[in-house]
């Protein structure tokens, strides 16, 4: 990492730490912002780097959210009774019970979605292009419907999450910090991942999967691993988001296919897919616009976002960073030297 890049990273980190102190009233919005960055980053691993456009990545988010909730409740109470009462039973969690439950819940919310991703990849990765997209969409819709119909986890009426034990203001800061850490870990992990052989392999699958197969690449392994990485971080994000919201239900919070599920794609495309920083830039711009339209254009907000998506997809397909890379390739480390070989001595 160069000195300039290190300084930039530290400045952004400082801004992230300072944000909830400077604007305490907006702490939750900032926390959701980090979750949005994580959405875009994890979608891009599949859609941008590997060329598999998943419309159903939200399934891991919802799955993680429910797993965490169940673990947290099951540690101290009977899950069926708790959910049947739809919030009427108030269980007092001690501090220790709450934090143990949350830690264990987040852990399971990271691991089980990976297993789900492995199973789904075994079923769905025979599909390519639009068929894969529709297949994953089907999984997300089915997950929401199945959860709605399953009364043990609260069905359509959802689950009231255990109440955070800290005082006022603490809850927001706690989950802000958790979301920020999860997203930074996700960023660091992907940054490392894209520097290994893995990145070339998934890029090769994106460019020509038949050719990759013809070269003997273990394509199925790479695809399963890439989706598992997405699932891991999305599961954690789901667990944190559910606890932050305080109340979870299948359609709007856990599996919001038409909002979060589409936003993650829109953000990656806006910033520039297939580049580490593309989704981050896209998420920042998209989230800012989303908050602004929700504040100043209420009633028209979805139309405004829709217009943004249309303009992006029709006129600006390479996204912001992709556009910049076309103009200033040297900023992105793309070397275009054409002078003949001098140093490589071997004939």
């Amino acid at each position, binding site marked *: 990492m160069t000195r300039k890049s290190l300084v930039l990273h530290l400045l952004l980190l400082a801004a992230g730490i300072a944000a909830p102190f400077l604007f305490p009233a907006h702490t939750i919005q900032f926390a959701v912002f980090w979750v949005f960055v994580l959405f875009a980053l994890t979608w891009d691993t599949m859609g941008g780097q590997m060329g598999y456009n998943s419309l159903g990545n939200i399934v891991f988010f919802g799955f993680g959210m429910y797993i965490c909730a169940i673990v947290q409740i099951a540690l101290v109470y009977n899950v069926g009774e708790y959910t049947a009462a739809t919030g009427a039973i108030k269980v007092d969690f001690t501090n220790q019970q709450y934090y143990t439950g949350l830690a264990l819940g987040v852990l399971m919310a990271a691991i089980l979605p990976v297993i789900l991703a492995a199973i789904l990849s075994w079923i769905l990765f025979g599909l390519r292009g639009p068929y894969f997209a529709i297949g994953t969409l089907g999984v997300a819709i089915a997950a929401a419907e199945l959860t709605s119909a399953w009364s043990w986890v609260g069905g359509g009426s959802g689950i009231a999450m255990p109440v955070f034990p800290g005082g006022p203001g603490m809850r927001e800061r706690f989950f802000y910090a958790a979301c920020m850490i999860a997203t930074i870990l996700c960023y660091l992990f992907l940054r490392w*991942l894209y*520097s*290994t*052989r*893995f990145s*070339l*392999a998934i*890029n*090769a699958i*994106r*460019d*020509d999967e*038949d*050719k*990759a*197969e*013809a*070269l*003997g*690449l*273990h*394509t199925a*392994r*790479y695809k399963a*691993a890439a989706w598992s990485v997405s699932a891991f971080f999305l599961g954690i994000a789901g667990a944190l988001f559910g606890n932050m919201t305080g109340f979870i239900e299948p359609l709007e919070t856990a599996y919001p296919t038409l909002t979060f599920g589409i936003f993650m794609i829109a953000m990656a495309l806006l910033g520039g897919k*297939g580049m580490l920083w593309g989704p981050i830039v896209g998420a920042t711009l998209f989230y800012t616009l989303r908050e602004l339209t929700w504040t100043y254009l209420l009633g028209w907000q979805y139309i405004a976002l829709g217009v943004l998506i249309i303009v992006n997809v029709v006129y600006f397909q390479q996204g912001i960073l992709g556009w910049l890379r076309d103009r200033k390739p040297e900023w992105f480390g*793309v*070397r*275009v*030297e*054409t*002078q*003949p*070989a001098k140093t*490589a001595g*071997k*004939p």
Partner: protein
Amino acid sequence: MNGAIIEVRGVTKAFGGVVANHNVSLKVEPGGITGLIGPNGSGKTTLFNSIVGQHPIDDGSILFEGREISRLTVQQIARLGMLRTFQQTRIFSKMDCIQNLLISLSHREHAWSGMFGRYSQELIEKAEHLLEFVGLYSKRMLVAGSLSFGQQKLLEFAMALMNEPKVLLLDEPTAGINPTLINGLIDRLKRANQEFGITLFVIEHNMRVIMNLASHIYCMSHGELLASGSPAQIRDDQRVIDAYLGAH
């Protein structure tokens, strides 16, 4: 050595009602260059696809180093050491030339843990060396999709060499290449065969090229094997001449 490196025995492949290959048998000797010719639509590429496992065959058997491979997948066969290039050149268009070569490395002993390794300087130098070999060294940092068609063919050839296969199946390596570059390509194919010890099995339409290159030639027509022999025998075979002139 006991027999052929590739042995095709009575292979039949039909697409619906169209029989693309009917009872085709042939052998590719190790270490040499074998040619496969025939008019358009005679089933040459279908046979290649059958050999590398692109599609299942209806009947017959295919042996690679004495081992039955007709039920293996493309990837498994590639990892055994048999590779093919495509008639419609296929490269990874958004990656640069070096990256194209690095990802083409053999995946024969590739374990799960190897997925997350890095490329050693040695491998990068090997990639550069091979790009030099096909004359693309100066283009090594360019995105492969920006190369001309002929350069992409050369890149695909270098990618195949990077993989160090035992056998390389080339589907019309000179199609679409500038005639002045063809001689250079023939030379490189021969060097790949001699210096790297790769057995070549080549589909080719250009008679001058295949007569120069191959030591043994098979000729197909209408999905069946028509003739086989040395370049001189094939050149003088009346059936081959008729097939090309459309006497069938």
